[in-house]
């Protein structure tokens, strides 16, 4: 297993290089530059030229590219043009924000999504199935920015229970974190709950038709053991793949939700970097996100082996 993980890590290096080349190239091809954002609508062309000079954007493409890779080789992802701070620092300070909300959202997704899927499968075509699937359908259908605004109107404006936005780090105040993170986490989770519930239901129905389930029931095992031990563990194989994808989506943040709730997370950082053509921030930020997603994929592969003893990566022995 250890050798497998090391091999996967080495394999990830060309992927990261490819990501950096593509992001560098694409951003240079996209028209517009950060100077227009810094200058605003009233900036004269001469003012924009000064801004470009200040940001080093007047240098030729190959010089900019050479500087980027020379810095990268030394572990320097560059300095954000707009924030004026190192890309690594700017991204790392946002990761705990997105990570904590992603984890909160993931917990909600797992608890509600798995429960809905299992309950729906066990009561196929019954009222619980219909109810759970309608809930799942609503989840995947509602645009999350709209849901976010509705949550603000209900819980902030009318009930006054939660703040309209902002973010309090959990280290500063757990209660404050819970208050500021709940609406963003719920808005993000609802779509994923819908997806997970539908996948769990269909996988569970498939598993329940398998011979080993019939055998377990024929042996007289209690239903909760049949479901909890034999069925659920097999349901988890495809579900883990989906969970991996869902978590990667949550982890890379959501520009929309972070904008609605004024959360300073990775999504908002990268989203505004793209909109404002902050090239080093986009390149460095994408590299870090790509790297974390590769790690997540490796983790998912390791989890396969845990849930399915047939999956082994140490073929060399």
């Amino acid at each position, binding site marked *: 297993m250890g050798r497998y993980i090391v091999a996967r890590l080495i394999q990830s290096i060309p992927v990261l290089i490819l990501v950096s080349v593509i992001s560098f190239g694409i951003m240079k091809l996209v*028209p517009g530059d950060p100077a*227009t*954002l810094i200058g605003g*609508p009233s*900036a004269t062309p001469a003012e924009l030229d000064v*801004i470009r000079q200040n940001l080093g954007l007047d240098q030729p493409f190959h010089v900019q590219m050479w500087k980027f890779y020379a810095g990268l080789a030394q572990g320097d992802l560059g300095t954000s043009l707009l924030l004026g701070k190192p890309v690594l620092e700017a991204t790392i300070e946002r990761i705990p924000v997105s990570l904590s909300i992603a984890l909160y959202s993931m917990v909600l997704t797992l608890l509600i999504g798995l429960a809905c899927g299992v309950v729906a499968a066990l009561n196929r075509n019954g009222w619980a199935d219909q109810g759970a699937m309608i809930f799942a359908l609503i989840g995947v259908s509602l645009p999350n920015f709209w849901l976010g605004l509705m949550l603000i109107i209900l819980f902030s404006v009318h009930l006054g229970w939660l703040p309209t*936005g902002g973010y309090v780090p959990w280290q500063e105040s757990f209660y404050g974190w819970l208050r500021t993170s709940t609406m963003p986490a719920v808005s993000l989770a609802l779509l994923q709950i819908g997806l997970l519930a539908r996948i769990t239901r269909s996988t569970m129905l498939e598993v329940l038709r398998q011979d080993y389930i019939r055998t377990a029931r024929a042996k007289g095992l209690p239903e909760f053991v049949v479901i909890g031990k034999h069925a659920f563990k097999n349901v988890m194989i495809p579900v883990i793949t989906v969970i991996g994808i869902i978590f990667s989506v949550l982890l890379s943040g959501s520009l929309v939700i972070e904008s*609605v709730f*004024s959360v300073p997370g990775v999504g908002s950082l990268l989203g*505004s970097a793209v909109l404002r053509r902050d090239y080093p921030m986009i390149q460095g930020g994408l590299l870090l996100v790509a790297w974390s997603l590769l790690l997540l994929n490796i983790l998912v592969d390791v989890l396969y082996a845990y849930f399915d003893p047939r999956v082994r990566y140490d073929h060399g022995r």
Partner: protein
Amino acid sequence: MRLTHYNIVLGTVSALALAAGPVAAQQFSCGKTGGNFVFAQEAKVNSLDQHTSSTISTRNVAMNMFESLMTRDENMSPIPELAQEVVEAPDGMMYTFKLRQGVKFHNGKPMTSDDVVASFDRYKKVGILKGMLDPVEKWEAPDAQTFVIKMKQAQPTFLENLSSFSVPIVIVPRENTDAAAMQLKTVGTGPWEFVEFIADSHVRVKRYAGYTPDRRMLTTNGFGGYKVACFDTVTFRIVTEPGARVAGLETGEFHGVEDLPAKAQSRLKDNKNIVLKPLSNFWVQIATPNLSFPPTDNLKVRQAIQAALDMEEIMEAATDGAYRLNIGFQYPGQAFYTEAGKETYNQKNKDKAKKLLAEGGYKGEKLILLTNQDYTNMYTAALVMSEQLKAVGMNVELMVMDWPASVQKQQNTTDGWNFFFTGYGTNTSLGGAEPLRFHSHPFNTYKPKGNVPDAELMTHWNALVDSKSLDDRKAAFARMQARVLDQVLALPFGSLTKVQAVRANVEDFKPFRIPRVSNVWFKG
């Protein structure tokens, strides 16, 4: 000429009017001190380096912390700020600034003319408007309280430029002036000192205990005046989603917001907990043509377009009703306001348009309107304009990009577009020659063929910037505006009103081009 005396008198008069009407002429004092004022602003703050950012979002925050030698008053006239007095040599070749006594930076160090020299040096290197210093031969500090600027050539509008709030030469301590662009430490002389900046979240400032207010005036006056920090702290929250700004204002989470959406205004105007603060004439909504690309290379076609437009309909849709019809590039009440070219504005004459199109030989060539959706009012203005032009038989297409891409296309290419949609905000409010600068060489925003400017236009421009007398400059402005409108080198649609709003317990908040958090306090 002793500008100082002249301007202080003006400043005092307006300060009096603002502070207490005709009854009391006493300096502002906070009704109550303390509290954390939370102001929600719409745009993200890139940087607090006021030398190298011209965005409104930077200015909103930074101009509460930084000050400059001269600034603008409530009516956008130049007034001294950190300067005690300004003396211009009779030949216009030298300006001597005496600094105000006792001013200290937020780090506790007294401000001297050496810091002013260093601040000007940095601005000359990285400042966005460093071009304003081109006519300057050198600056020096003969003593700790005196700063002298020597000119290469006299420029009648030099003090106007120097007092511009667009990208002002704010005075910072010498030890911070080596900072690269966008990386200046936020240490100024203003009533508020920096606490923290969490990008995309908030900027927090606190009252600067060592602040030396400008006692020549009674209260705030434009960007300057007598400023008092009544709150303990102020938090500028970045809330880009308009719905969230409105919700926060309603719950009381925010005490003030900028740019209240028009739809929310009608609902909130009856809310007794909220006071709307409309700021009219925030910018001129405008489209500029491309004279190098058909069919807008044809004057008759441009005049036909001008004749067809119904500005009320365009502005109503673009701003949800928050607008004023406005001829040209200045607002009523500004020194250079003129109705020259009035006959070209808001004609809504379809018959005339069709006739001009026929005279111009228009054969249904495509007219491309280059706009963006980052500024929805620009997009909507383009959309309505396209429908109005289709109604007179033109073949119109919208080219929608994001803001940076549309600016780049406008600046770098003369192919594939005919009108570019934008807004003139800062330049228009600065007055003087500024609103027409875009139409002068080398900017030539109307994209003449070969970038060769309209000769008559440039004659007026040169008179506008070089004439010694104010009246001559005003006359030149009127002639230039008339020429721009007559030749359809721009289509000004009208002026946009921006609405700020505060909770009812916020006292003495006056809408302005930045949210001024000095001389504002919590009642009760």
